[in-house]
């Protein structure tokens, strides 16, 4: 069932509630609110037009081109988000996300979903978006945690290498802790699925008229894809970070 434009516009009146509160309590958010909503509408409009074009044309090169743009955009976002100033960081992010993408996405599309039209943008783009977005967040969390835990345990680290540990042996406890920190929230999230949270994708499918049984099959598949991607990209990212962050004498680079 489509939403009428006039009804959608009408829904904006609801925003008068936050605006009234902002005015009454002099919370300086009105400009930001208007700016954010306008930006969202424009961005979504552009995306809808692009998607429409990609979905109708079914051109494999356009689709791949769009996937590459998504990857580049996520690398840039992540680089900006991480407040670790290391010149090699963007390369690590790029390699981790790229490797993860070329392993998981083809499996998802060709093996698990297997749509009638090969590389159908209707499946590829949203699924890649979910894989990429989640991998990006966990990778950021993993690298940040690694850096923090290393700083807190730097004496432990030096102590280990003093007893003959290699860089990988000495950083293993730190790797374990940071992987755990980035993956644990995800695992908890999986078990709460359905009762506490109804995921956006499933909601969308159900609203669009799909049977709940089809919707949950997609949801289960997506959770498997997301969790394996998140683990794989965090692992690759952290291993590369360890490799790059220490010199050949296993000392942290300054």
């Amino acid at each position, binding site marked *: 069932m489509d939403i009428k434009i006039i009804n959608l516009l009408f829904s904006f009146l609801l925003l008068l509630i936050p605006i009234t509160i902002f005015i009454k309590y002099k919370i300086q958010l009105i400009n930001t609110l208007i700016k954010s909503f306008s930006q969202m509408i424009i961005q979504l409009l552009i995306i809808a037009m692009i998607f429409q074009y990609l979905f109708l044309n079914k051109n494999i090169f356009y689709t791949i081109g769009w996937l590459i743009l998504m990857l580049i955009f996520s690398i840039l976002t992540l680089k900006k988000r991480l407040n670790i100033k290391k010149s090699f960081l963007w390369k690590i992010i790029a390699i981790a996300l790229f490797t993860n993408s070329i392993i998981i996405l083809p499996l998802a599309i060709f093996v698990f979903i297997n749509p009638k039209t090969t590389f159908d943008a209707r499946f590829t783009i949203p699924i890649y978006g979910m894989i990429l977005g989640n991998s990006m967040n966990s990778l950021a969390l993993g690298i940040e945690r690694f850096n923090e835990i290393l700083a807190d345990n730097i004496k*432990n680290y*030096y*102590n280990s290498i003093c*007893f*003959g540990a*290699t860089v990988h042996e000495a950083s293993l406890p730190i790797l374990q802790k940071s992987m755990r920190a980035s993956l644990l929230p995800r695992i908890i999230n999986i078990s709460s699925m359905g009762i506490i949270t109804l995921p956006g994708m499933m909601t969308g499918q159900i609203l669009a008229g799909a049977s709940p049984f089809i919707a949950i099959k997609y949801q289960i598949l997506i959770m498997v894809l997301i969790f394996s991607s998140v683990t794989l990209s965090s692992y690759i990212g952290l291993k590369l970070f360890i490799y790059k962050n220490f010199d050949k*004498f296993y000392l942290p680079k300054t």
Partner: protein
Amino acid sequence: MNLNLLEINIKNLYAGDKLILKNFKLNISDNKNITIIGKTGVGKSTLLKTLNLLNLKYEGYILYKNKNILQYRPEELRSKIIMVIQETPLYGDTVLDDITNIFKFKINHNKKFNMDKLKQLLKIFLLPETILNANPLNLSGGEKQRISLIKALLIEPEVLLLDEPSSALDKNTEKIISEYLLNIPIPKFIISHSKIFTEKAEILIELLENQTYNLIKK
């Protein structure tokens, strides 16, 4: 000709960007006790760290068994020239975990963990065997210090680098442990101002503030 175990020839030694020592030369061919003294900040720890590749800011060379230390794999050199750093943290659920953990490093695989030797060392270092089941977080500074020394001895190093090994010990314990350490038949570099180490050392090195040093052979 005497074969040198360790040949140190440092032209300039830096701590960060600061020059701390010039023209430092020392050859060690047998099991000597070398005690290093000097004011705080003069670079005693930096000198020690230079010997096991924890500090690389120097000009000159250090040979171990006639091979430049830079040519060793770091883990190989560090498992032979073992350094016990100050206030070493312990790691793991129990003290025993922390001790056995170092035997999991690949370079130490050929050295078997020996429980009897551990118990013997605990006795010498005046620690009860029950400490092995204690949580490392509950240990006092002196206990941690002794466990770290025991760990180093279990690995059977060829050279020991000790940074203030008795700083957290009471007089009586210090005397017993210092005497034991001094009699281990390997070369030892010891940073310490305690009387036992300064008096019984065969070589006493005093680092001075103007990048020079006094070397007294007894």
